[in-house]
């Protein structure tokens, strides 16, 4: 069972010519988060409940209910992302490189408590994902 994230999750990976410390600030300081993501009352404390607020649209108040799940300074940050009763998880991973930082963001729609069980399952993701890829077609 290798990395099957690309189809069960949205993954963005970028090399950034900035040290992990600077990127960590942009991911964890309210005013900086607001400048690139959304207004928020985030705190880098595991268990902290907070909200992202964006412009309301018809049938949606623009609010994302979140809870901090992982805080490993300069290395890993994860929070839940709840909209309209749908719970997903956003995880940022920072890896230092000679040029700066490799930043990886994974947004997974599958409930996180399942991740332990699917790893042990005899059935792999590969075939399922093969099918899903056919359906997804030109995605990305």
């Amino acid at each position, binding site marked *: 069972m290798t990395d099957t994230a690309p*189809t069960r*999750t*949205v993954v*963005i990976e*970028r090399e*950034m010519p*900035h040290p992990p410390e*600077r*990127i960590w*600030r*942009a991911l964890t300081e309210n005013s*900086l988060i607001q*400048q*690139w*993501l*959304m207004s928020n009352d985030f705190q880098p404390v595991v268990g902290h409940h907070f909200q*992202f607020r*964006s*412009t309301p*649209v018809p*049938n*949606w108040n*623009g609010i*994302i209910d979140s809870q901090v799940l992982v805080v490993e300074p300069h290395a890993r940050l994860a929070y839940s992302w709840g*909209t*309209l*009763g*749908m*719970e*997903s998880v956003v995880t940022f991973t920072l890896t230092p490189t000679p040029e700066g930082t490799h930043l990886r*963001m994974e*947004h997974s*729609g*599958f*409930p996180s408590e*399942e991740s332990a*069980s*699917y790893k042990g*399952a*005899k*059935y792999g*993701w590969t*075939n*399922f994902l093969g*099918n*899903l890829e056919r*359906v*997804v077609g030109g*995605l*990305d």
Partner: protein
Amino acid sequence: MVLLVKPVNANHLFRALADPTRRAIFEELSRQGEQTVHALTRYAGVSQPAVSKHLTVLKRAKLVRHRHQGRETHYRAQPDALAPMVDWLRHYGAFWRDRFDRLENLLNRMDK
């Protein structure tokens, strides 16, 4: 690029497919075409009541359809039902790419 955080609700699909046995059943039906509950039970390696329960969840998510023939119930996959999940991936893919562009702009400004 202005991009709203348009909500896409694929919750029932993600839940239905979060279970490895259900994924296996859905995959088997997608690959082999229509199957009886008996055949699926042999394939999944769990009890028939367990398979029936999984099929009920898949049915609720519209991922499978069934028909009765004699004493057997036949199931087949409905891959079109995956569309909300595809929408979800497409939507958040675009959303995060846009936000990462903003993040890079911000980091460059912080640099100065």
